[in-house]
């Protein structure tokens, strides 16, 4: 499995793109040169210099340090919400697909409700009513992407559950729980793993979008989307202020998308629909 991964060129490129960001996220506080919240009112919107490697923002805060500490909230929200979506969607899809009938109708229609809303609008509405912050963002984005996982799991279960080896497992006296855990789950994982990487990319994008609008991760804590939102007013004065967070954001999303593409090639050569 790992061997197949490393024979895929896209996979290696995506890992090389993502690895530095992961490392910086973990080592962040050790690398920063300044307090990301420290205001230096004399040096506002300064170009890169020896003290401020990438210059300063509109409050004289160090862009480099904010950039580095901005990875964490982004990754926490992206990974947390994807985890939540996977967990909820997987359980809903398993139960709905395996039991069918009333359970299926109840669970799958409940999931469909989320799909009635354009994603960012539902997020905006919840943020408007309940306020923002990392926990709420994880919750909202997690709920938003649950339907995708539920549907993929559901269609996987439907395909697998009528196969002979599940029948034989049941006739040997295996419990429903055992069949779901040992018989079905491992065999429907591939499309879900692909979906995980695509969802992480979407979640990063959504979080950045909300932060850009000023309703995501709350200031003064740094996040890339929010930095881009603030910097857009100073594009002419200080182009490098907007350049770095934009570049980091694009690279992260590109890396995650490429990872998803390569996983699709590796895990499911038959699956060809790129959505």
């Amino acid at each position, binding site marked *: 499995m790992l061997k197949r991964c490393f024979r895929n060129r896209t996979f290696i490129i995506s890992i090389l793109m993502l690895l530095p960001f992961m490392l910086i996220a973990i080592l962040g506080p050790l690398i920063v040169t300044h307090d990301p919240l420290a205001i230096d009112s004399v040096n506002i919107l300064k170009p890169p210099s020896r003290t401020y490697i990438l210059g300063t923002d509109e409050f004289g805060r160090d862009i480099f340090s904010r950039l580095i500490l901005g990875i964490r909230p982004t990754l926490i929200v992206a990974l947390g919400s994807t985890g939540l979506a996977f967990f909820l969607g997987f359980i809903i899809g398993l139960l709905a697909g395996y039991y069918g009938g009333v359970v299926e109708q109840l669970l799958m229609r409940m999931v469909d409700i989320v799909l009635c809303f354009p994603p960012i609008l539902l997020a*905006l509405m919840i943020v408007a009513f309940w306020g923002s912050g990392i926990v709420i963002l994880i919750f909202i984005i997690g709920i938003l992407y649950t339907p995708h996982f539920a549907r993929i799991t559901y269609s996987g279960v439907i395909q697998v559950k009528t196969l002979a080896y599940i029948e034989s497992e049941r006739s040997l006296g295996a419990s429903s729980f055992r069949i779901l855990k040992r018989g079905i789950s491992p065999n429907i994982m591939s499309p879900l793993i692909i979906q995980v990487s695509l969802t992480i990319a979407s979640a990063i994008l959504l979080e950045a979008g909300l932060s850009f609008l000023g309703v995501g991760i709350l200031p003064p804590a740094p996040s890339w989307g929010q930095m881009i939102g603030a910097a857009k007013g100073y594009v002419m004065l200080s182009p490098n202020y907007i350049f770095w967070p934009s570049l980091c954001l694009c690279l992260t999303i590109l890396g995650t998308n490429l990872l998803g593409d390569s996983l699709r090639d590796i895990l499911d050569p038959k699956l060809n629909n790129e959505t």
Partner: protein
Amino acid sequence: MIRFLIKRIFLALIQIFIVLSLVFLLLHIMPGDPAVLALGTDRTVDPQVVEALRHELGLDKPILEQYLIYIKNVANLNFGNSITDKVPVMSYIAERIPRTIELAFLSIIVASIIGVVLGMVAALERKKAADIITTSLAALGISLPVFVLGTLFIYVFSFSLRLLPAGGFIALSKNAGAHYARLVLPVATLALPMAASIARMTRSSMLEVLNKEVVQTLYAKGLSRQKVVFGHVLRNAMIPIVTIIGLQFGNLIGGTVLIEYLFNLPGLCSVLLKAISYRDYPLIQGCIFVMSSFYILVNMFVDILYGALDPRVR
């Protein structure tokens, strides 16, 4: 077909009803009193003022009664008055929605044309330079957040080259040229990432059909390449392409929120953002409801089109 049509329209109505109820429910289970929050948390609010606003918003009635009144009002397209300036929410929506719809439709049309053409070229020129360039650009395109792309465009085309205005809005009736000049950058920003997804889908869908044996038979029959590609391959490849264009509408509405903010376009989404910052609940409810309904109706339309293209779906 008629049965499918009725079923699909009925489903859309149910979805709209669910949206309606959820918008109501979310407001009422939120922590805190909407009236107090709307009046601002920074100063101590006079209880009498709060009581008056509660009465005005109907928050002093039992919740079920509020719900029924709300449904009745929405059925009459009455979303109440904005808290901040007492203007009926509906008049805001009526004024702003044409702008948002114009932006959305122009973008999806541009995106579809660029996407389908590039995707076809890539599929027909498989593994040649045109294909490699298109697929790499498409991979880049779907990873580019619209607000980053938009800022880049503003920087390059407005500030550096001074070719196009960086945003704002001028009514079509006042000056058509200026009106469209202000739409070029927003539409391009919204359309390009969508075109990337559409191109990817078109490419893989076309390749799938091109690899079928039918195509060889068609060539063997003596049909020209043009006739095979446009008459048969594209037609058969169209279903997934229509689907992805429909799916893009979800992203598109999210995109318009960001684009209107970035380019200072006074559309419906910018009203929504302002309403959120002022905690103007009737206005938030109205905007979300209208935009979600629009989304649901577009999805319905796409499904019906899908049914018309592929009889198996019905």
